[in-house]
């Protein structure tokens, strides 16, 4: 049973560029959440996707956008990259609804460095 997978593992981009990060949820999960973890801090919620729609959003600018596909996988896009966007980006999956658990399963993350 595959857990949450993310690609790529590492990425180096230049200020102003755009980046796309990918996530495949744990088998059987239908909800994907994205978090940004800066060095020395806890993960910060970016947004959550369910049924291909953004269901919740944290305090992040519109430069951060996402998408969920019919197979529940998800992408995180960041436009006009800033140096401050350098962080570990974590994807977490869970199962929504009454059947679901509030436990989220995290992937290993994508380390983004903006120079």
């Amino acid at each position, binding site marked *: 049973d595959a857990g949450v997978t993310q690609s790529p593992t590492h990425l180096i981009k230049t200020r102003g560029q755009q980046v796309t990060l990918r996530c495949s949820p744990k088998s059987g999960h239908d909800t994907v959440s994205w*978090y940004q973890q800066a060095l*020395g801090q*806890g993960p910060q*919620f970016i947004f*959550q996707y369910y049924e291909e729609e953004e269901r919740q959003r944290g305090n992040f600018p519109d430069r951060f956008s996402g998408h969920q596909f019919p197979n529940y996988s998800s992408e995180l896009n960041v436009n006009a990259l800033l140096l401050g966007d350098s962080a570990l980006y*974590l994807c977490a999956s869970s199962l929504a609804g009454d059947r679901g658990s*509030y436990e*989220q399963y995290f992937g290993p993350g994508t380390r983004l460095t903006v120079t």
Partner: protein
Amino acid sequence: DQQVKQNSPSLSVQEGRISILNCDYTNSMFDYFLWYKKYPAEGPTFLISISSIKDKNEDGRFTVFLNKSAKHLSLHIVPSQPGDSAVYFCAASEWRGQNFVFGPGTRLSVLP
């Protein structure tokens, strides 16, 4: 404004002894609390949870205590093992399925 606080950035404990990790929160609407463990180069791993209707939840060597009036929870690990050395995050949410607010983490070192 940090809604979830872990005031100890690091903690060192001798193997076999008890590790106590603390977490404080400010949002009285938080209803679910979780602890995650994170090793380097890996994503956080769910450890144990507690809902606001309970004051204690136990799972093997791990016990989480919740004091709603004090807005405080703690994670007890007994006995501590070297493999427990990791960063521990406390997280909270207002309702099931909602996003979680994480604390900054506490790095636990269990010394052999």
